[in-house]
């Protein structure tokens, strides 16, 4: 059985603190895995190492059989791993639509030569991308905001938009860092609905989330980590009933 993502013995130290300690996990295509654990457990560090924003101190990560833990962030993204950030990252002064358009991969109009020598080709592709982007926005209820700057959106809408941007990249693996933290309940349901529908499109996801109810609702499997290690792994039920997890969450 080959995995979509296979991570083995990942290590990361920050000035003597082991943020990732021999962390291993794997993910099948179409699977949604929850990553839970107390603050400082190394969850976001794992995302950062996997997407090339941090260099690992050891271990390997394979995505579709390609070693990704040594690649720069944009290369990882081009291979098909998209991510959201815990602190919201969007291009605040660009319109909502432009944020989505930015996320499309392999745009001919992003190459200098095409801009000047194949303008009509660029325009055609841009028009196509625009339609796709508007469709994505309408399915997430952001159509009427399409031409507003991203910073005019509410916090929940911005979280939704960053998820839409991930979808627009066409990535097969989405790394979602607290996609529903700090937003209104209706919005949570909407975002969870999008995450739940990912496997139908052949996409997989890992989500970091403190909202355990949300994790239980959408995840096929849950990994509990603490102090950079994987402590427990299993179905949502199993992990929820693991005494070590209960202990960590009560403390």
């Amino acid at each position: 059985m080959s995995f979509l993502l296979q991570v083995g013995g990942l290590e990361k130290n920050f000035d003597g603190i082991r943020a990732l300690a021999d962390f291993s996990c794997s993910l099948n295509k179409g699977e949604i895995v929850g990553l839970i654990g107390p603050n400082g457990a190394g969850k976001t560090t794992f995302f950062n190492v996997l997407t090339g924003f941090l260099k690992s101190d050891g271990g390997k990560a394979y995505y579709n059989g390609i070693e990704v833990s040594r690649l720069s962030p944009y290369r990882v993204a081009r291979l098909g791993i998209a991510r959201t950030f815990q602190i919201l990252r969007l291009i605040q002064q660009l319109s909502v639509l432009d944020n989505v358009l930015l996320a499309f991969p392999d745009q001919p109009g992003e190459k200098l030569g095409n801009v000047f020598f194949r303008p009509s080709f660029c325009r055609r592709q841009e028009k196509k991308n625009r339609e796709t982007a508007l469709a994505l926005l309408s399915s997430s209820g952001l159509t009427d905001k399409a031409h507003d700057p991203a910073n005019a959106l509410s916090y929940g809408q911005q979280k939704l938009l960053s998820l839409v941007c991930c979808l627009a990249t066409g990535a097969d693996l989405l790394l979602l860092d607290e996609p529903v933290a700090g937003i209104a309940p209706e919005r949570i349901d909407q975002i969870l609905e999008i995450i739940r529908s990912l496997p139908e499109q052949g996409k997989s996801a890992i989500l970091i989330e403190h909202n355990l109810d949300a994790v239980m609702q959408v995840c096929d499997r849950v990994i509990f980590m603490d102090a950079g290690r994987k402590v427990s792994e299993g179905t949502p039920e199993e992990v929820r009933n693991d005494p070590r997890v209960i202990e960590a969450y009560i403390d």
Partner: protein
Amino acid sequence: MEYLLHILILIGIYAILSVSLNLIAGYTGLISIAHAAFYGVGAYVAALMALKLHSPFLINVVCAVILSGFLGVLVGIPSLRIRGDYFVIATFAFQVITFSVLNNWVSFTGGPMGLPGIPQPTLFGLTISSHIGFLLMMGLLCAITLWVTHQLVKSPFGRVLKAIREDEVFAQAVGKNVAAYKVIVFVISAGTASVAGVMYAYYISFIDPTSFTVMESIFILSIVIMGGAGSFWGPVVGAVLLVTMPEVLRFVGMPSAIAANMRQIIYGGLLVAFMMWRPQGLMGRYSFQKESTRT
């Protein structure tokens, strides 16, 4: 009349300089104070080639753009690792080095004595000698610069530049090769600035290093910021404003004993007022101040 044409030609030169600086400072968010260095490299390449090799105008332009573009890569590379204040310092270093070379390599550049007697340019068998001729040529070059810039910033390429200005990390996370974009935009900007330098050298027919000091770089940056960094017409409006303002102040009719000083004071006061009440510039929506105080 000649005086008016002279002002218009100067506006043209500064429009090219500020529009090209706007590409890096306004759209990509990399504040550079090395623009006068690229401007100077263009002027010196053209002057030296015209004087020593007697090579034709167009070849000199091409060589100036190539050398300046190459130097643009060198300045662009630090921007891959450092941002903000630190990058400004790096560009300052390049500016100082360039000035020192121009000023001290006496046997080659003439040093502080400059290079006099640059011949009039000949284009397709036509020698350009009159102010009108230069103005037409400036107009054409400005139009080309604006067209190229327009194509760039309205394209998906320009969208990536703005994304880099706002949030590099996000741009990388959606698969944009931020490093390549920064270097490319630096090359384009430096190459364009050198064209302004070539025109300046041919137009004035004498150049010396004092035209390409860090003060000149800061002046070009002021044009961009006052006009409106990151807006398409902003730098053009800024160039018109900042080139004509000192000239207009000439005619205010102050006692001649204090006129020169008063002009400087009024000019400085206007700059301060602008930064206080309209930090995004005349045409701009994007403000440096808002950026740095955003929580």
